[in-house]
């Protein structure tokens, strides 16, 4: 059985390692083969970008060699897929090679797309890539005061990022001793300050207490970079001195180009995780169109399900369990407190008051991630 995993990020890596462990004997005997095709020989811990933008991590701390994270027995190639030929059970890569598969998993992730909003690329700082996070940190360091506006496009990965960056910025300006010269203004697309109702319930009073102002029902339409004005779909205008954005995202271009899903989001069965209409092609992580958080933890729990199911398909010819929509997210509330939210398709989250202990746990997780990617946590 040839198993092909396309994408060596959070979801693809956890799945490959999970499968390699479940199929040790089958890999040895040649009954199964696991191949991973990815676009990079490096693996980035993306949540670290938030800390990079705040000067609390450096770029070297974000990366590991991808090959070092993989179980022996996984055949890893840096050779991105350019063509998906689902009817032939084949893919074609950038180097021109063709790979056949019996089962394929697509885990190519998502990317920010600030280009979708006129004026955004020129006007705003963001932190969703190494380059932009570093640029944002430099800009922050030279900022001496004024109105800082945070905007949020949808969909985006990491649903907690808008609140986290806002509370972290508040502490950052306090630490620099210029908090009295800075007005932080937060905006959010729906009628409260966060998608999760209970998170919004404590975050709004927290913002009130810190003097952070906010506009809800604010969906950015365009940025007038010359006059430093934002305009929303709802008809509201806001002036800014420094604009920070969590841009809307798309799936990878290769997905859309191959007709696998509009804007790069692949229609996916929400419990079986197969690509709609295909029994031997699965997907996980950011690139699915499932209406849940695009987060590393989502990719992780989906990978656990697929690991069990694909191993069972090799061993007994059928999958054994369903994905229940589980997501777990840490929420940093400034520089020294954090909380978390856990939920699934049926059970809403009920985050508790932030504590220092959860913050320290999140900092520990920033290191533990590498064990998690190896499929050991």
């Amino acid at each position, binding site marked *: 059985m040839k198993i092909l995993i396309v994408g060596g990020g959070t979801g693809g890596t956890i799945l490959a390692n999970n499968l390699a462990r479940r199929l040790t004997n089958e890999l040895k005997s040649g009954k199964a083969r696991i191949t991973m095709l990815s676009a990079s020989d490096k693996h980035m811990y993306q949540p670290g970008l938030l800390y990079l933008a705040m000067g609390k991590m450096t770029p070297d701390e974000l990366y590991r060699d991808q090959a070092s994270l993989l179980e022996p027995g996984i055949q890893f190639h840096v050779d991105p897929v350019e063509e998906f030929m689902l009817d032939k059970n084949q893919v074609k890569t950038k180097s021109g090679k063709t790979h056949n598969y019996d089962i394929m998993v697509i885990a190519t992730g998502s990317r920010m797309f600030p280009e979708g909003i006129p004026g955004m690329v020129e006007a705003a700082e963001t932190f969703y890539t190494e380059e932009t996070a570093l640029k944002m940190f430099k800009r922050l360091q030279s900022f001496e005061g004024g109105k800082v506006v945070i905007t949020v496009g949808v969909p985006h990965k990491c649903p907690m990022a808008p609140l986290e960056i806002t509370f972290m910025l508040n502490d950052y300006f306090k630490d620099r001793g210029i908090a009295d010269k800075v007005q932080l203004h937060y905006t959010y*697309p729906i*009628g409260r300050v966060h*998608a999760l109702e209970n998170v919004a319930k404590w975050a709004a009073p927290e913002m009130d207490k810190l003097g952070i102002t906010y506009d809800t029902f604010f969906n950015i339409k365009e940025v007038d970079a010359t006059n430093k004005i934002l305009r929303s779909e709802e008809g509201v205008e806001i002036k800014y001195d420094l604009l920070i954005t969590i841009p809307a995202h798309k799936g990878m271009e290769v997905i859309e180009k191959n007709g696998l899903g*509009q804007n790069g989001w692949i229609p996916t069965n929400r419990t079986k995780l197969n690509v709609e209409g295909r029994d031997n092609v699965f997907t996980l992580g950011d690139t699915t169109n499932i209406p849940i958080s695009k987060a590393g933890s989502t990719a992780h729990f989906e990978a656990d399900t697929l690991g069990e199911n694909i191993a069972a398909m090799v061993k007994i010819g059928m999958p054994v369990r369903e994905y229940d929509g589980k997501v777990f997210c840490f929420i940093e509330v400034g520089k020294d407190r954090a909380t978390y939210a856990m939920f*699934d398709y049926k059970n809403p989250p009920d985050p508790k008051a932030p504590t220092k202990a959860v913050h320290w746990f999140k900092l520990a997780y920033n290191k533990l991630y590498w064990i998690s990617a190896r499929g050991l946590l």
Partner: protein
Amino acid sequence: MAERKIVDGRGSFCPGPLMELIVALKSSQVGDELEVLSTDKGSVNDIPEWINKVGHEYIATTEADGVWHIMMRKAK
């Protein structure tokens, strides 16, 4: 030609059905009808409120087996 699209936001606590609608509208044409499915009762108020605020056309809401169906038309 105007289309009719289903936006399946069932079981979505985060980002939630309204966010799913906002995303779906970006790739829709003026005149398209969108039907949001939601298992979150809050959507019954949130979604029409947002539709009216932005200036799209709210059509109707119905409920069947614990799923709310909220119909709207993209107007701009």
